[in-house]
């Protein structure tokens, strides 16, 4: 893992790809060249009343020193980001956290909601057409799905049943017949716990990306330290990706 840096990036483009979901590309060569799938960046607001960094996953890295964020407007900070336009500055520190391990063989990936985003860079980097990616959406606003489909096999679940299987990604996975050597997942906690159990039943190693409230984002404050199997784990430092064996579920 390379050391993180502070960098003031420059916005190259931003567009709303679904209701309240934004696709932002920033020129930030120092962070870009260090980034691995599953790592995240601390993004800072301009409004000084919002001091803490917003952790956003690296959704992709371009060859020209760009990084891409896909994010949902969840509150005032992400709203502020959504108003940025080409040429605006964005202060960041990163890359942070450990990222997904490199594992050969075919993988199954589960992404739910905003948890889909960190999987995009992973799927692109793996570029294994035999990987199976389960994507869980609220409705048929299937953001980023086509990009996934260019690198791997995609199966979709929607909460309202308007596309693919009605229900969760686990409903879509059912009793998967294919052989695979690892599971990668990011999404809401109930989904991660279900994926944990699903992989456990099949005896396959799962790598799960957790979310937690952060303050420093770099491992210093212990604000994000969740209970692990043996000791507390800092989501920003030992994580956000944990192997199933580290978690006390």
């Amino acid at each position: 893992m390379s050391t993180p840096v502070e960098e003031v990036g420059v916005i190259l483009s931003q567009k709303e790809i679904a209701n309240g979901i934004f696709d932002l590309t920033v020129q930030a060569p120092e962070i870009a060249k260090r980034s691995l799938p599953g790592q995240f960046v601390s993004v800072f607001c301009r409004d000084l009343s919002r001091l803490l960094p917003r952790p956003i996953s690296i959704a992709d890295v371009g060859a020209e020193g760009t990084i891409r964020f896909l994010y949902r407007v969840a509150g005032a900070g992400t709203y502020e980001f959504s108003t940025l336009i080409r040429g605006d500055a964005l202060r960041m520190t990163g890359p942070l956290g450990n990222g997904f391990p490199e594992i050969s063989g075919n993988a199954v990936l589960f992404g739910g909601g905003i948890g889909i985003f960190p999987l995009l860079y992973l799927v692109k980097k793996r570029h294994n057409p035999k990987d199976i990616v389960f994507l869980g959406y609220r409705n048929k606003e299937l953001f980023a799905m086509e990009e996934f489909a260019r690198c791997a096999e995609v199966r979709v679940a929607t909460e309202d049943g308007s596309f693919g299987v009605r229900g969760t990604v686990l409903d879509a996975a059912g009793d998967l017949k294919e052989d695979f050597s690892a599971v990668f997942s990011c999404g809401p906690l109930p989904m991660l716990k279900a994926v944990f159990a699903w992989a456990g039943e099949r005896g396959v190693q799962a790598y799960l990306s957790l979310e937690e409230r952060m303050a420093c984002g770099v491992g210093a404050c212990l604000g994000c330290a969740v209970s692990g199997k043996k000791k507390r784990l800092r989501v920003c430092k030992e994580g956000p990706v944990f192997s199933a064996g580290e978690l006390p579920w």
Partner: protein
Amino acid sequence: MVTDLSVDFCGLTFKNPITTASGTFGSGMEYKEFFDLSLLGAVTTKGVSIDPWEGNEVPRVAETPSGMLNAIGLQNPGVKVFQERDLPFLEGFDTRIIVNVCGHSIEEYCRAAQALSETAVDILEINISCPNVAEGGLSFGTDPAQVLRITRAVKDVSKKPVFMKLSPNVTSIAEIAKAAEAGGADGLSLINTLTGMKIDVRKRSFFLANRTGGLSGPAIHPVAVRMVYEAARAVSLPIIGMGGVRTAEDALELILAGASMVAVGTANFHDPLAAPRIVKGLAEFMEEEGIASVKSLIGAVE
């Protein structure tokens, strides 16, 4: 003009008056990736106790307007690990080491202070905002009689200068400061966080797992300036001032109010380079204003 940023107290010289606020900087390992810790006058560590502490459940932090709440619960690996892992790391830098100490009882504080006295640390900073188990979990720091007792007990077993870190959750900071002085403290650190609470209105429940948390950040800066001023007038001890410092000007306010050194806390989260930037800003300010030594500014408000 050559500006002199150095300050001295307790027979120690600090190359500049900027340190880090306990708990916001770990032992510096994470921030050394961003800058050379030797740029600081001192590094103040996360609180350590004689035995390891687990800390609270998550969520432990919440953002608030111009500040944040935290309820980490003083998670730390204990004095032994600190001594074996963190201290040798810090000794590798040309900066002073202030170690923050916590405990559940006077005995726990004393054991930690005693053990740490045998090491290379320069100052012991005693966090008396910890819950006093014997007194039903109330903080040691809110009752002058208890402050006097704990100060005296820790002083008796310590071979290093002892700074008492005061809680702002009191009616009269001057009374508490005097109690620490009467107990033999070598200095004071203030302010710790102000107790607060945040409620998630949609979930109709507490935002932090611990329900209450300590408020820090620029939101508390004016409270810190007032309290440092009142403490400085009440006692003749050196003061490490802290609370919401984000810029060199914020640090200067605390220095003018009476602080000999200033700690940068929550601002580290907003900018990992905040502390060295404040050192640089101080030097620039002094040059612009034609001030030869920062010492001339300590307590100089009139």
